[in-house]
């Protein structure tokens, strides 16, 4: 159970969102919506333990989630608005290196995001949508991590890519995983609770 109570976050000394409360059970999904600047990215960073909490509480199974930041980091996988890829490495090298750092199976991740055909391509020559797929393959590496945090995951993805992401997310939720995603576009998340942040 992942829970936020009256959470407020700041960025650059300014409160960007306030009074955010939600409770997420295993298998559930939360969709963050709201206009530009409403604090969706800041909220996701706070949930990831990267942002600064101004007020309120973040609980994991009833315990303060960020008391042990390493433990919290170990239970989440994050896909931010940046792809965090190195242009000089190939797709397969990228995922193999990441698998050695965070765990998981690089070959399964390649297969799950339908990246086998691109495995030997350097990231430098990929299109924006292909890069996004590589970034999303990180989620499959983090399949054992219960909490997935996604910032605009479908940006630059084609229709087939969105469908693939939908299958990956559905499999994660079927295993009892949780998903928190922000998006302006329709996301393949059935039965997600919507949390609308005001600007």
């Amino acid at each position, binding site marked *: 159970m992942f829970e936020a109570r009256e959470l407020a976050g700041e960025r650059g000394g300014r409160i960007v969102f306030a009074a955010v409360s939600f409770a997420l059970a295993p298998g559930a999904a939360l969709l963050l919506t709201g206009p530009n600047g409403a604090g969706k990215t800041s909220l996701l960073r706070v949930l990831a333990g990267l942002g600064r909490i101004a007020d309120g509480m973040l609980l994991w199974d009833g315990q303060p989630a960020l008391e042990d930041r*390493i433990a919290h980091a170990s239970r*989440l996988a994050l896909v*931010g608005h*940046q792809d*965090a890829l*190195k242009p000089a490495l190939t797709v397969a090298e990228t995922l193999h*290196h990441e698998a*050695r750092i965070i765990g998981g199976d690089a070959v399964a991740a390649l297969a799950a995001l339908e990246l086998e055909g691109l495995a030997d391509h350097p990231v430098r020559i990929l299109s924006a949508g292909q890069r996004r797929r590589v970034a999303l393959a990180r989620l499959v590496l983090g399949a054992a991590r219960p909490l997935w945090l996604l910032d605009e995951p479908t940006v630059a993805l084609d229709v087939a890519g969105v469908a693939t992401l939908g299958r990956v997310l559905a499999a994660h939720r079927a295993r009892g995983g949780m998903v928190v995603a922000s998006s302006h576009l329709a996301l393949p998340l059935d039965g997600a609770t919507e949390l609308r942040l005001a600007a």
Partner: protein
Amino acid sequence: MSAAFALIRRDLALARRNAGDTLAAVAFFLLACGLFPFGVGPDPNVLARIAPGVVWVAALLAALLPLDRLLGADHDDGTLDQLLVSGLHPAAIAAAKAAAHWLATALPLLFAAPAGAVMLNLPADAIPTLVAALAMGTGVLSLLGTAGAALTLGARRGGVLLPLLVLPLAIPALIFGAAAVEAATLDLPVRPHLAMLAALLAAALPLAPLAAGAALRGAAE
């Protein structure tokens, strides 16, 4: 622990792919050493007299070159966020980055150091001491440099700020490192100087990654 080694391995793979950065540091070092005979004149005695200090300063400056991209590149492209949520302790991330910097930049400089020393007429029997002292001194610089790079992350003109922050802290290593080489040229005992360098390294080894780790977390906020 194995995750930290995996991070070092990833960074070394990247350094191999972008080998130009390493070559640039080595070329800068050799060029800086090679400029001094033009500046102070070709008198072999004068060159041998200043060689220990010149080689040391040139090596420190060359090792500084890639520091601002060491963490800056990861900060800009989002890799740092990924590392911070990987479950690695921030201090372990910093230690791995320092190790990668030492292996990718300082180690090649150690191989180039004898060439720089020969250009400056440093007696050949002082070269083993030079390499041993540089090995430890560049280790100190990698650690301090990583802490400096973490502190200047996100700062405008961080690349200019970084040497201003790190070089003064490297002065003790420079003093004992150059003194060790000078002692070797005069057939004096070198061990006290090397022991001081080892002590500096032993102090920087736990402290710099802890400071850098705290700064990394701050930079993410």
